[in-house]
């Protein structure tokens, strides 16, 4: 928890400590936005032990909801946000209901497949630019005002929502619901023998994760003012998974740390070479092999 407070304080202070330039603020915004999606994924992976490889789809759906409404010239947040969250949540509900009937390797593959399905669907929407993507006419408005166009305001909106997401995840985990979820991860037979059927709990977790990803999608659409099917590519799901691992599975704050770390690392690597994936790839492999506890695990030496 202390690490979390430290992170949030640092993020709040960042614009005034040398990260105030437009480009850097955008970078931090990306980190925080993906952090929101990663928090949802953490609930699944770290909380419930479910490895989902299709999380980017929910993020993309949130983004495309913004697009669809933008096409209709609707930008009011009071409409856009609920629609996006609902869309992402419904998709999570429908796909999760099927996927959660499977376990292990099958579950991973099914989430991947559903993610691809959404990816192709997005690419075939010629109305929204198909493969080329869609440029927003304008950012989401709050009560008619174009507050989000201001980078600093946007920064703190993202930070605020990140904080909210963190609190929600924390609360869920500490509640009766979270306890059952964790138990089912540690030993499913035992949990069933106690009288709990893990399915409805996992489904709820899946939907919550989906809704958070949808929220991230709304913010990402605003940050880039552009949305493309590549947002739903499975490599993006892999990235999100990497963020969760990188931060360590011990607590949700790890997901935020991982997101920021990856975003900054990718930026830095991209400055070195256009073939930065040649470096990132092996780094990911090494992390998977040698960092079972993620970055957070590096500090604790127990």
């Amino acid at each position: 928890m202390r690490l979390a407070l430290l992170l949030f304080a640092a993020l709040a202070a960042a614009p005034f400590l040398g990260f105030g330039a437009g480009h850097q603020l955008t970078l931090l915004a990306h980190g925080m936005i993906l952090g929101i999606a990663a928090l949802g994924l953490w609930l699944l992976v770290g909380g419930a032990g479910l490895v989902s490889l299709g999380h980017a789809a929910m993020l993309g759906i949130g983004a495309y909801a913004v697009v669809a409404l933008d096409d209709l010239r609707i930008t009011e947040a009071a409409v856009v946000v609920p629609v996006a969250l609902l869309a992402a949540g419904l998709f999570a509900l429908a796909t999760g209901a099927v996927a959660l009937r499977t376990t292990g390797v099958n579950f991973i593959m099914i989430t991947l497949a559903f993610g691809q399905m959404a990816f192709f669907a997005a690419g075939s929407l010629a109305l929204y630019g198909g493969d080329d993507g869609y440029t927003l006419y304008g950012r989401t408005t709050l009560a008619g005002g174009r507050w989000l166009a201001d980078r600093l305001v946007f920064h703190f909106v993202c930070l605020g929502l990140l904080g909210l997401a963190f609190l929600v995840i924390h609360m869920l985990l500490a509640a009766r619901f979270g306890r059952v979820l964790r138990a089912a991860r540690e030993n499913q037979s035992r949990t069933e023998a106690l009288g709990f059927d893990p399915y409805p709990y996992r489904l709820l977790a899946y939907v919550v994760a989906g809704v958070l990803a949808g929220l991230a999608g709304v913010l990402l659409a605003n940050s880039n003012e552009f949305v493309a099917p590549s947002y739903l590519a499975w490599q993006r799901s892999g990235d999100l998974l990497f963020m969760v691992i990188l931060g360590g599975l011990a607590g949700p704050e790890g997901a935020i740390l991982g997101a920021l770390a990856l975003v900054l690392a990718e930026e830095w690597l991209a400055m070195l070479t256009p073939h930065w994936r040649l470096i990132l790839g092996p780094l990911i492999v090494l992390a998977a092999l040698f960092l079972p506890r993620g970055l957070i695990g590096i500090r604790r030496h127990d």
Partner: protein
Amino acid sequence: MTDPVLRLEGLRKAYGGLLVTDAVSLDVRAGEIHALIGPNGAGKTTLIGQVAGTLRPDAGRVLLDGRDITGLAVARRARLGLVRSFQMIAVLPGFTVLENVALAVQAKHGSSFRLFRPVARESGLNRAAMVALDQVGLAARATARAGTLAHGEKRQLELAIALAQSPRLLLLDEPLAGTGTEEAERLVGLLGALKGGPAVLLVEHDMDAVFALADRITVLALGRVIASGPPAAIRADPAVRAAYLGEAADAC
């Protein structure tokens, strides 16, 4: 004469051509400890699986309090009061000892779809959990992580978890497996204290414990019941002797 708490009627299960459970019938009455013994390969594990709900019998019925539960899933049976302990220890290693038991209590006290309040602060759950821990003598280790417990302590925890579920039927699958003499004695004492409470179906290899605890014993060999009755009768039964001939009938 009231219904027995658990009744097995003609259970049958085959794997391919191999008949592992052959027309097994038995019943367990409230308050009694009914032991199930048999040489290795007798089919005890498969039978337990059919009672617990992890395996489906090919034929026959399982009745709990007169109700047919043969087709019900594991979690459903547990909610109806069929509580089991595991032969391979299944405590939750990342949870504390208290949390392990509190989770069991939680299953019986209202919905677990509560999303807002921290469960660790629910004093009702914690109190009930401590009662169960007291019963098995593990209260002092309440805040320890279950993964750090010694083997015998984990066995005690298994028992505490089972008791916390307010069982109608307690299905104990080799609760003494892997324990040393001292720990085994302590566990036998705990189990003995259960008499008069829930119905207990006890599967065990430790013959001393079985004969010390059981009100009735059923002997399984090659999937069939070859004898059933009070301990003295079983001890004298020639068929039982024959089944065990050459078998070292003591545990660990």
